[in-house]
C-alpha cells in the first residue's frame, strides 16, 4: 500500500528510508525531504493553538500528481512520513492512522533496544519486517 516509508530524526536527517524497489529511490528522497517543510509548518501551527496536547497524526501533508504524502510526528519530534500512490483511492484516513500507529510502536521497540544508539540510522530486522509488511499489498 505504501510506496515509501521514512523515519526522520528530530534534526531532520533520515533515520530510515525505504521505498518500493521498482521506482526511483531518489525521487522519494526528494519528496520526503520536501515534505518536512510542511511538517514543520503544521507542528508550529498546532503548537500555538492547543499546547502540549497535540495530535501526533498530521494528516495529508500534500498531494502531488502521483502520490499522497502523510505525516506523523512523535512527541520527541521524530517524523514519520508515508507516501502512498495517488491511484490507491481505497485507502482511508483510518488505515493510514493505524499504519502510523504500527510504525510508531515498532519504532519505540527499536529505541528500547539497549544496543541502539539514538540518532543512528535504524538497522533492525524486525523493523525492516514491519516496514515490508506495510509496503506490500495487504489491502
Amino acid at each position, binding site marked *: 500500500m505504501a510506496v515509501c516509508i521514512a523515519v526522520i530524526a528530530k534534526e531532520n536527517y533520515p533515520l530510515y528510508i525505504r521505498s518500493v524497489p521498482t521506482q526511483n529511490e531518489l525521487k522519494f*528522497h*526528494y519528496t520526503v525531504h*520536501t515534505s518536512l517543510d510542511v511538517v514543520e509548518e503544521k507542528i508550529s501551527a498546532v503548537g500555538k493553538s492547543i499546547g502540549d496536547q497535540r495530535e501526533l497524526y498530521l494528516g495529508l501533508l500534500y498531494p502531488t500528481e502521483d502520490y499522497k504524502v502523510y505525516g506523523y510526528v512523535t512527541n520527541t519530534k521524530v517524523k514519520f512520513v508515508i507516501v502512498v500512490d495517488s491511484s490507491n483511492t481505497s485507502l482511508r484516513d483510518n488505515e493510514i492512522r493505524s499504519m502510523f500507529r504500527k510504525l510508531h510502536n515498532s519504532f519505540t521497540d527499536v529505541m528500547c533496544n539497549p544496543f541502539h544508539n539514538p540518532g543512528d540510522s535504524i538497522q533492525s530486522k524486525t523493523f525492516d519486517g514491519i516496514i515490508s509488511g506495510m509496503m506490500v499489498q495487504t489491502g
Partner: protein
Amino acid sequence: MAQGVQSVQEFIQDSFVPMVAVLCSEEAGRVTRKNNLNFAELLRPFCRLTSEGHIRDPNNQLQVVKNLRICVNNVVTSTNTPSATLGPSQCRLLNEVVSSCQPQEGAVNNVVTAGEYNLNVSATTPWFESYKEKFLQSMPASDHEFLNHYLACLLVVSSTEVVPVEQFLKLSQEQHRIQHSGEHSIPKWFIPNTLKYYVLLHDMSEGNEQRADMVYEDMKQRYGSQGCYLLKINTRSISAEDGEQIPDPWCQYLHRNSLPNQVSTDYSSGGLHTLCAINTDLEKCSRVPEGVVGGAGIHGACLTLSDHDHIRQFVQEFTFRGLLPHIEKNIRQLNDQLVSRKGLSRSLFTATKKWFGGSKVPEKSISEPKSTCGLLYPPEAPELQIRKMADLCFLVQHYELAYSCYHTAKKDFLSDQAMLYAAGALEMAAVSAFLQAGAPRPYPAHYMDTAIQTYRDTCKNMVLAERCALLSTEILKSQGKYSEAATLLIKMTSEDSDLRSALLLEQAAHCFINMRNPMVRKFAFHMILAGHRFSKAGQRRHALRCYCQAMQVYKERGWSLAEDHINFTIGRQSFTLGQPENAVLAFKQILTIDSRQTATQQGAFLREYLYVYKVITVCNDVCLLQLPLPCINSSATRVYFGHERRLAEGEKQAATHVSLDQEYDPDLAAMWFHLEEQLVTAANRGITPVNFQPTQYCLNCQTDNLRHPLAVMEEPIIVEVMFRNPLKVSLVLSNLSLIWNFTLDGVPPLKEKMPDKLTISNEETLARLQLLPHRTGELNIVGVVYDLAAASSGDMCGLLLLTCKQALELMTGRGKQDLNIQGPRLNQTKEDKMLVRRGLDKRLDPIITPPMPLLEVFFLQFPTALLCGEIRKAYVEVCNVSGVALCGLRVISTHPDFFTFGSKSAPLSTIHPTSAENNSAYQTFATPLQPDLVASEMLVSAEDFSQPSDVIDIPIEGNTLQPGESTQLPLWLRGPDQEGVHEINFLFYYENIDKGNKNRCHRVLRHTVFICASRSLSVQASAFRSSIPPHHVLDDKGGGGTLVFIDVENLNTSDAGVCEFHIVQVSSSSQHWRLHKCINPAKEKGGCGTLVLNSLCFFKYIFSVQISIPEFPEYIDVASSTTSSGSRSKSCSPAEERVRDITNIVKKCNELDLNVIIIWKAYVIEDNKQLILEGQLNVALQTIGKEATSLPPKQEAQEMVLLKFKSELPTPVITPSGELSQIIKTNLHYPETYIHPFVQNSLCVVPVTLMLSNCSSAQVDVIINLRHKSTSPESAEVHSLFTWVGQSQYKRQLKPQEVLCLTLQACFLQAGVYNLNTPKIFAKPSEQGAMCETSQQASTPALIIINNA
C-alpha cells in the same frame, strides 16, 4: 530575493502602454539613419513622459496621468494570424535573453536564515526580469483585447522632400490601406479612425530651415496645429569631431537584447553598488556598439543635447496635444454609445438576445465557427465597445472606470459564453482593481485564477495564460501572498516549454524562501526542478546555479542520495561549462562521503571523476592534484627504520628484533625501554644519561613521536600507509611512491625510490614504501603519489587485453595525497583540556645520521621446549653486518636465570645434538667416596656470583667486532621452574666504536623466544632445628644443627616421552652451613611415577666463617645464578649487625639461608631414540620450620576486594609470638632409665640438667618456672605423679648464643614412665623492657623410665 526592480504598479503600467505606429518616408528614414537609428528608435529613450498629463473623464472629472509611457513602433505588416503559442523565433529570442543575462560575479546575495539553515540566495533574478519584459513585449496582438493595438500613427516626412505635403498624403493613404484593406491581420488598430499625427523632420545640417518652417506653416493650416509638428534634429554634422561627449540614451534600449551584458535591470533606487554597476554598464555600452555596428559610430552621432530636448518636447507635445485628447474624445464617444444602450435593462437586453437568437448568430457563423475558446466577435461588434472603453481608460490610468467597464464586459462575455473575451476582461478587471489607488476593494485573486484556467484549459492559449500568471504572481508577491504565488507558478509549468517552466519553478522556489516561515526544503526542491528544466532548455549556467543553490540545503545533512545526485549534476554541468576544477570538486564529494549508492553507481561516479580529473591534469601538468580516494588513515601510518629481517638462515634462527608485522604493545614497549635503560646505565658505569631516549625502530600513533627519529644512512626507511576504500568498487593504485623533501644545504639527495607496487584495495590495505637515504640530512616525508584507476569490471575482462589496457590508461589519474599526521591530543593543562590541542608528531621527519654498526644475532640449536630445570646447551652467533666496527656488546633479559654464556674454550666440535653425553653440563669427577658418608664439602668463591646487575657482558674476543666479523658463543639454558609457556626477551646492546656521533652512539637488538616448560621433578625441603643435645655432636663449635628433609616428587605424569628420572647428586650451597651427615642416604633411582624420596641430612652450622677457596674444579659451566642469587646479598656477617628491632632479632634467629641443589637425569624417548636430559633443581631454604619447594609459589587468584565504607580499625600490632617462642632452645639431660628401690626409699630424686641455648644474637632474659600448672587436665594428672624439688623458679640472663646449664632435681614417688618436659620457660630480649616474656615452645616429650629395683 526575486523582487523586480520596479514596483509592481510600475511594472503593470509599463506592460500596458498606448501603442503608436510610425510610418516614415524614404527621405525621413535617411535623415534618421545618419544617427544609426530609425525614427521609432530615435524616439524611444524619450517615450517616458516626465510631466503630468490631464484628461477629462466622461463625467468631466479631471484625471491626472502620471509617468505615462508610450510605445512607438514601426509598422510591420504581416498576414499571419496571431497564434496561441510563441513562434520559434520568439522562443529563440527569449532563450537568448535569459542565457545572456547571468548573475554578476559579485552580485549581492541575501542571506536567509531559516531554522538551522543559512542560505545564500541571489537577491535579484535579472534573467527573469528581462525574460518577463521581453515576453510581454513580444506578446502578439490579439482580437479579444485592444491594449496593444495601435492608437495613433505618426506620419514622418523630411523637409528635404520636394513636396512634403504630397508625401504626407501618400503616407496617410498608406496607413488607411493597412488598416482597412483587410489584407494585413497585423498590425491591429484600436479605433477605426486612427489618430494621424503629421511630423515634419528637418535636418539642420543640410536642409533649408526657412523652407521647413514654411512647410510647417502650411501643415498647420491643413491639419491643425495640434495634429502636426516640426522636429528639427541633426544640428551637428557627422564630420564635426568635437570632443563633446553626449550621453547615449539609446544603447540600453536598442542593444539590450543582442548584447551579452544586461544593462537596465540594475537601475534600482541607488546605493553604491548599483551606481558602480551603471557606470560599468555604460562603459560597456559605449564600447560595444562600435564593434557591433562598425564604423558608423555611436547612436545619435549628429544629435546635440538640444536636439535631445527637441525630441523630448516633440513626444510630450504629441502625447498631450495629440494622443490624450484623442483618447479622451474616444472615451467620451464610447461612453455615449453605452449610455444610450443603458436605457434597456441589461437583463431584458440579454433576454431578448436569447429569445430572438439575437443578431449575433449569423455574425458568429460568418466570422468564425465556434472554436474551443467559445464565441468570436467581429472586430466592430457592439459587445466589444465596452471593452475598448475599458482599455482606453486603463491606458490613461483611469483604473476606477476601467474596472467597472471590465466588470460589465466580463458579465456580458460570460453570458455569451465568449470565454476568451471573458478571461481577458477578468484578467484586466483584477489588474485594474489592484491598481486603483486607495484600494476601495480587495484584489480579486479568483478573477485571475479563473482567467488563467480559462486561457489555459478552454482556450489552450498558453501565452496569454502565462502573461496572466506573471501579472498575478507579481501582484500576489507584492501583497506577501507568496504561497499562492508559488502555487500559481508551479501550476504554470508544463511540458511544452522548458525555459518557461524552469524560470517559473525558480520563481516559485524564491517564493518559498520569502515566505514568513521560509520553506527551505521546498525552495531547494524547486530549485532542483528548475535546474533540471534549465538544463533541458540548454541553459547550463542557470542550471548549475540552481543546483548550487539547492546544494546549500542538502549539504551534509544526511540526505546522501539527494546530495550525491546534486553533486553529480553539478559536476557534469561544471564540466560541460568548462569548469573542470569545480567538476572535480563536486565529484570528489560524491566519492569521499560514505555513499549509500550501489556498486555500479559508484563505479560510474568514479569513472566520471577520473575522466574529468584526467582532463584537468592534462590541462595543467605542473603540480599534482589531491585525490580523494582511497582514504588514507594518516594516524595509522607506521614508519620503520632498518632492514627487513631475515628470520632464519639454515639452522640459524635470527633474532626476532622489531618488524612491521608486529602489533604495538605499550606494555611490551615499556618493558623494552626499561631493559634498554638498564643497559645504558650499565654501559655508562651506573649512571643513566640525562638525555637518554629509548630507541624506537617502529613508530606508530602510540609511540613517542615528539623528537625527530633517527635514520641511518644506507639503511632503508619503510613507511607503511593504510589505505581505506570507502567504495564498493575496488580501486587500483599503481606507481606508488612517496613525496619527500630533503633539506640540507640544498644538496640534492641521492636517493633511491624503491616502491613500485600495484595494490588492489577492497577494504583496508597497507602499502609499504621504502626510501634508502644516501646522505645525511633532514628528511621530510610529505605524502604519497600514485595512479588511481577503477578496477576493471567483469565485462571489461572479456575484451581484448590491449583494449583493456587502453581503457585502463584512459581511466587513470595521477595525483597525490598528503600524509597529515596529527599528534596526540594534549591533556596536560586546563587549556589543553578545554580546547582541542594537538601535540607534535615528527614520525615522518627523520634525521639521517652517518653509518652505524649493525649487529645480527643468530641462535643455533635453540630449543622450544624444556623440562622444568633442564639444562641445555645452545649457541649464539653475533655478526657485525655493517661497515663500522662495534663494541661494548651486552645483553639483558627479562629472565636472567634462564641463560648464561659458556666459556669460549669449550670445543665447538662437540655441537652435535645426538651426543647428549658429550654435551652434558656436568663433568663427572672421580672422587673417592666414603661408603657411609656421601656428603662432601665444596666451597665456591664469591666472585663467581659477582654480576652487579642483570646486564651480562657478552664475552667476545677483544670486545670489538670488526665489520663482517662473526663469533659463535655457547649458551647454557635452564628450563624455567614453572611449567607453561614463557616469553623470554633478550635485548642486545652495542656501541659504535667511534663515539663521535653526538646523536646516538648505541644501538639495540631485540629478541623474543617462547619456551614451553613441562613439569619434571618437584623438590620439597624443610629444615628443623635439631633437638639432639650438643654433647652428641662430635665437633661442637657452639652452634646448633639443622635437619633438612628433602622430598622429591616426579610430577611428569603426562609426558609419555619421559621415562624416568634419576637423582644424580644432591648438594648444598651456603655461606653458613656445611653438610655434616647424610642420615638416610636413600639413593633410590626415582622411576616413572610419583615417588617420595626421603633423605635426611644434617648440616653443621659454621658461624661467620668467610669462605675463600678460589677455584672449584668439579663445578664447571653450571648456570649457578639461581644458586647464588639468594645468598649474594647477605655476605656480611650477621654478628656485626646491630640488631635493634625485635622482629629482626627473631628473624635472625630463625634465618637459615641454605640452598639445596638436586641434579637429575631424565631418560627421554624421542623419535625412537633415547636421550638423556640433565637438569638441576634448587631449593632455597630461608627459615627454619618453613617448607620450601623448587616450584615458585603459585599465585593465588586475586580475590575481589569488597568495598568497605568504614575505615578499618588498625590491626593491633601482635608480636610474632610464634617466632618469639623460638628464641631459647631447651634440652633436658637425664638418664633414660633410672632404677630406684622404692621399698627402701619412697622418694626417688633424679638429677636433671636443663640446657638453655640462646639462638638469637641478643641478650635475653629468661624465667624458668617449674611449678607452672598447665591448664589442661590431662597434664595435671601427669604432674601429680612427680614433682620438681629445690628452687622452683630461676631468673637468668643469656648472652647471645650462650648456653646455660641448670641442674634440677625431680622427685618421683613410684615407678613408671614420666614426661620431664614440664618446665615453663619465658623469654624476652633484655632491651625490650616493656614487653612481657613469651612462653617458649616446649620441645618433644622427655620421657624417663623409673624402675623399681
